[in-house]
């Protein structure tokens, strides 16, 4: 089975984010860049499916700039077979990114697209659902368990108040939640092999899809920082304060 896994380059989750004084973006000096953690989970799931089936191909796709090669190489080192980097010079909105991924999918014809539920920087939680609609495929968001049998897929989803199970035929889009699996690390032989794996580049504006963003980020600002309060010496004092000062109990 061929599986397409979109990969986004994001600041390491441990990075302290600072908004630039002019509000045009965030400071990127001293930022360590990594694969979006939800995309690592997506890649791990794709690799496990391939290993279980004993055949297949896992293809990575990024819509970004030259520097994103770094994260694609990491994904190849984890075990993906090849990668596609669609280069875009100007910022794209979620719908444009989804259009690019859907266009590549209609050429590559994967049976599954496994994609992170949300990018931990922009936090939109949109691209997977958009790709599914653009292709007219079923979607299973927030997956915590995926089962494949006879061309049919059953997914357990993390929803409010419990777990929902849905089923559908392939091809389909699945978005990953935290509990789907624990991603592997790239091994040393994996890293060596990754250097020789194909990484093709093409230009976003050569795909014939609409790219102009309809969503524009005008400015960014730093939210007001919450001030730390004080330490209390005992449980007794704490409960007293909550009662008489904060008046919440």
């Amino acid at each position, binding site marked *: 089975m061929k599986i397409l896994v979109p990969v986004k380059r994001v600041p390491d*989750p441990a990075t302290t984010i600072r908004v630039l004084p002019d509000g045009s973006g965030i400071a990127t000096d001293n930022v360590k860049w990594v694969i979006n953690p939800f995309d690592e989970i997506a890649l791990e799931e794709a690799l496990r499916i391939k290993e279980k089936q004993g055949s297949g191909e896992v293809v990575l796709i990024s819509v970004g700039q030259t520097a994103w090669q770094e994260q694609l190489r990491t994904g190849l080192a984890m075990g993906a077979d090849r990668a596609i980097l669609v280069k875009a010079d100007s910022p794209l909105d979620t719908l444009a990114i989804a259009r690019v991924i859907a266009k590549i999918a209609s050429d590559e014809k994967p049976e599954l697209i496994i994609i992170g539920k949300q990018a931990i920087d922009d936090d939109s939680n949109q691209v997977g659902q958009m790709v599914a609609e653009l292709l007219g495929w079923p979607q299973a968001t927030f997956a915590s368990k995926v089962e494949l049998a006879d061309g049919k897929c059953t997914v357990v989803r993390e929803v409010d108040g419990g777990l929902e199970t849905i089923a559908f035929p392939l091809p389909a889009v699945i978005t990953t939640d935290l509990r789907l699996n624990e991603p592997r690390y790239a091994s040393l032989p994996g890293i060596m092999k990754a250097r020789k794996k194909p990484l093709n580049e093409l230009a976003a504006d050569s795909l014939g899809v609409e790219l102009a963003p309809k969503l524009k980020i005008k400015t960014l600002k*730093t939210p007001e920082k919450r001030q730390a309060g004080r330490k209390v010496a005992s449980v007794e004092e704490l409960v007293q304060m909550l009662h008489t000062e904060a008046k*919440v109990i």
Partner: protein
Amino acid sequence: MGDVLVYAEHRGGHFPKTTLIAVSAGLELARKRGGQCIAVLSGDGAAAAAAEIAKYGPSKVLVLEEPRLKHYLADAAAQALAGLVKKLGAETVLATATALGKDLMPRLAARMGAPMASEIIAINDDGTVVRPMYAGNALATIELDGPVRVVTVRGTAFDAAKPSASAAPIETVTPELDAAALKMEFVNFNEIKSDRQQLNEAKIVVSGGRGLKSGENFKTVLEPLVDELGAAMGASRAAVDAGFVPNDLQVGQTGKVVAPELYVAVGISGAIQHLAGMKDSKTIVAINKDEEAPIFGVADYGLVADLFKAVPEMVEAVKKLKH
């Protein structure tokens, strides 16, 4: 012009507080855009829920009637809603960013070629919206272009709509669905039953972290405090990952965002991803044995103590207070 269509989520005829938040945000946006706020419902029990929602201020309530919408599924719901938006000529479609809202709205946006802003926390007079990014470390002011736009609202950022004396008219709409394009099938819903309050509705939330050390300790140490305070229970990702408590209790950037009157963090270090889900709470209490723990940086009251001693003491102290 400027009409707002609010997708009013409900389960079997009952709607959560988050739905009233969507209605209230929809009313605010409609007022600022010079349009009407129209609520739409679908699925089992929609008629009963519609009769209730009609009392909360929308100009009109629509019920989508179609057997394929009985159980919510993204493909059918997006089709039905897109058809309705076209027919009504609505400018914005709005829902709260619940699991369902997050599942449905992007699909709908793609179907209509519309831009979408997720989890907005404010609507400016000029029509721009504000949303947090980078785990709440940045607030973006966003402009949406085009004849149709989609937004989800963050449940903590708007007050719930209030009931009024009059009720809006209710109409039934039969959507035309392209059945051949619908391939998703509902199998089952494994509800986690609890007598406690819902995380995003409670006035008080008590959350436990890895410091609790086991699921057993959540039951014997944390739950008595949760119940004594009449609170909802939450958890850090570490506690959920370790299997101490169910997934849907996770508070944070990639879990639920809450802002109760009182948030008590027990044995939680205060990673940025956790803070993103609770730092707008009115009063924050942290109980942690490490005085350097970052959670103290946002706590109004911090207690440096061993939770296994402090929490049972707190249960007793709260009991005493009540008598």
